[in-house]
């Protein structure tokens, strides 16, 4: 067992290092689930109304593809339907990132070298990161279950739903365990995990669109499909968890097998050589910023584009459905009014994408902080580059990058939708504009990140909390009819729903101004403070 010795010590180290992250990750999905249940209870208090809503959703392939099927026309079924995507995004993302952070990222920075020279077995780092991740997923499942039971939902269903969240987390932890063996860079490992998330999600979306009951053979391909096959609150299929467990065991075995075939710090895939000289274009801070932003930007844009095609295509398949229905109108009310069902569906997707683009804006803006924390900025600023020029070069790519990402969704979505309705000339510009009006709100998020970075770089990560707060405000507001003044906190609440009610300029201008002011505040702070690691 010497290969595993030291695992316990490493587990304590991980818990100590992530003492802030782990509780947040554990608390978010249960919190979300509780908010969703509360919302449904307040909006659809009777069993009859819940049944009607469920029936309408099942008949809306677009919604089913986006969020999954409603497997049971009850409060529990609706809750499972509404919370599955968001919860799995958080759980899968956090699980994969935690494993990568404590394996490959440590190897990349050389931290694990120090550790593995101690009485630490070859397999201890992977084992420790898996133990912590799988453990946290279980705690989170228990919390979700407790929250659901507290609202009086059936225990069996609550356990099944909570466990299905944990299961998806386990899958992605194990998958990340394999990914980190393959590449030398933690960024590439995160890319692999992210690509699998998108792939599985899309596979499942296609499957759900074809068979809204969520029981097509295609469901067996994607772990997201397995989550539906568990059928929480409907007819719980506990055997499906064996499928999860089997896949997790196979993946972990694979990770261990691969890890014993490689050196510490090396990956199974060998890195390619680079050019001996820089191209003539690589000559200023802007060119450098482009090199640093390029790869993640292209990856984000690709995901947004695939999503756009899917939404554009699905929107058409559901146009036949009449949305003049009062109950459905109620559901869509918060999107700006019950107009055409497709427009509402597109607007719904856009809201979701606005938040995701906000997340991209934060990662892109905080690249400034990464560069400073890693000490790379010293050499740039010690050359003939002013602080302002360096910061602005990166911010220019944030501005352009967020536009690229949103257009990467809007263009294919509009095109696919236009092609399916036979009116590209009308739909394409409309959908593209509807996507691009999210830019000012996304820039506000970037501005918040910049202001925090410029003034107190230690607290720059708080921008994630702010984005989370905006999300929460919208989610609660959307269903609990919170007062307008609370809703107005979120910049996304000011984005005009172009497809439903047309463009309004005033909010866009004021959001842009707010973003500009925040950025300037950040830049002034950055100019005046010391640069430090």
């Amino acid at each position, binding site marked *: 067992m010497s290969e595993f010795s030291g695992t316990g010590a490493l587990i304590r180290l991980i818990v100590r290092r992530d003492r802030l992250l782990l509780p947040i990750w554990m608390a978010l999905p249960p919190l979300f689930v509780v908010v969703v249940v509360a919302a449904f209870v307040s909006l659809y208090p009777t069993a009859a109304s819940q049944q009607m809503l469920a029936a309408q959703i099942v008949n809306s392939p677009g919604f089913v593809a986006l969020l999954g099927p409603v497997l049971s026309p009850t409060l529990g079924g609706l809750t499972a339907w509404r919370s599955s995507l968001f919860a799995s995004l958080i759980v899968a993302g956090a699980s994969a990132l935690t494993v990568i952070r404590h394996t490959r990222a440590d190897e990349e920075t050389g931290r694990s070298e120090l550790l593995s020279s101690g009485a630490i077995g070859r397999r201890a780092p992977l084992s420790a990161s898996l133990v912590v991740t799988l453990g946290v997923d279980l705690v989170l499942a228990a919390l979700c279950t407790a929250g659901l039971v507290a609202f009086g939902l059936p225990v069996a269903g609550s356990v099944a739903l909570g466990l299905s969240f944990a299961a998806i987390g386990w899958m992605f932890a194990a998958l990340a365990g394999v990914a980190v063996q393959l590449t030398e860079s933690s960024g590439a490992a995160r890319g692999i995990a992210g690509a699998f998330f998108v792939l599985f999600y899309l596979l499942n979306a296609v499957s759900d669109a074809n068979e809204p009951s969520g029981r097509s053979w295609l469901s067996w391909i994607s772990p997201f499909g397995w989550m539906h096959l568990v059928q929480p609150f409907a007819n719980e299929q506990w055997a499906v968890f064996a499928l999860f467990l089997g896949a997790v065991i196979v993946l972990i075995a694979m990770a261990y097998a691969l890890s014993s075939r490689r050196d510490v710090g090396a990956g199974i895939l060998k890195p390619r050589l680079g*050019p*001996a000289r820089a191209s003539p274009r690589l000559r200023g*801070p802007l060119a450098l910023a482009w090199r640093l932003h390029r790869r993640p930007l292209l990856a984000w844009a690709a995901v947004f584009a695939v999503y756009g095609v899917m939404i554009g295509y699905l929107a058409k398949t559901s146009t036949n459905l009449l949305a003049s229905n009062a109950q459905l109108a109620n559901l869509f009310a918060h999107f700006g009014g019950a107009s055409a069902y497709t427009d509402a569906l597109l607007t719904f997707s856009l809201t979701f994408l606005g938040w995701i683009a906000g997340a991209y804006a934060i990662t892109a803006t905080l690249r400034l902080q990464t560069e400073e924390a890693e000490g790379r900025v010293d050499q740039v600023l010690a050359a003939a580059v002013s602080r302002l020029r360096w910061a602005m070069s990166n911010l220019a790519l944030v501005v352009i990058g967020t536009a690229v990402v949103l257009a990467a969704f809007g263009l294919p979505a509009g095109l696919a939708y236009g092609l399916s309705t036979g009116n590209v000339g009308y739909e394409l510009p409309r959908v593209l504009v509807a996507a691009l009006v999210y830019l000012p709100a996304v820039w506000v998020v970037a501005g918040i990140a910049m202001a925090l970075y410029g003034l107190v770089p230690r607290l720059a990560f708080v921008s994630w909390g702010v984005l989370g707060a905006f999300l929460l405000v919208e989610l609660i507001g959307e269903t609990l009819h919170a007062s307008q003044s609370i809703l107005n906190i979120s910049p996304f609440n000011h984005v005009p729903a172009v497809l439903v009610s047309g463009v309004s300029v005033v909010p866009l201008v004021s959001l842009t101004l707010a973003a500009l002011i925040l950025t300037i505040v950040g830049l002034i702070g950055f100019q005046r403070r010391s640069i430090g690691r």
Partner: protein
Amino acid sequence: MSLIEIENLTKYYGKTLALSDVDLTVEEGEIFGFIGPNGAGKTTTLRILLGLLRKNAGRVSVLGADPWRDAVALHRRLAYVPGEVSLWPNLSGGEVIDLLSRLRGGFDRSRRDELVERFKFDPTKPCRTYSTGNRQKVALIAAFVSDVELFILDEPTLGLDPLMEAVFRDCVREVRQAGKTVLLSSHILAEVEALCDRISIINAGTIVESGTLTELRHLTRMSVSVETAHPVTGLSELPGVHDVRVDGAHAHINVDAGAINRVLEHLTPFDVRTLTSAPPTLEDLFLRHYELPTGDGAR
């Protein structure tokens, strides 16, 4: 002309005092050694000279300008090698060399190729895969290709092997030959002794000694070993003689500068067979003039 002037420089990190009333002057065309143990405040001083850190008090002038206000204009005229070189993982070493020297305002391609050759550096690998020594080479090559007046080097040989250290010393001497000025921070005393015209020793944020190596050597002792026909006696009574160890025909002493002649006169009657003397090393100076700090100092 003084290229760097520092007067009463004081810097706090929060409540921790990192530099206290530091005075330092670097003259044009010299190699100036800035030595001290880890955490003494070397890097902090250099980063203030580059305008990366704010100072709390004192006056700093580099090439006649204020490094905080005139950073960009100033940086066109100097090259910096950080103590801990961190590079962009997805760029190749060659790309980073070119980029950094272009950011400073262009470089001579043949000089660049010559340096890559001399440092035996493979510029095609992604920076992620370089060892500490190789990352150091990237920063050194990028600095030495630049046609600048001042080189600020922060512990530049950390991680270099002895062969590369020799290449580095040649490069430093070449730029001095060309009339450039070098500020070299180090805790490797042999390096400072081999290269520097003048040095300042910093400890716990305070300058404890400054001067030429010769001047500083007068502050310390010469070590003398002697073998005689008859056992030596009476050494301990001589003024300026310390640490006497006599073992039969062998004697070992440390002698103050200035007392050596009297010691030789004393030894002659004992019939000297062999005598070796070693000049005081910087290490002696180092150890004698301050106790190595035990607590955490500044960075």
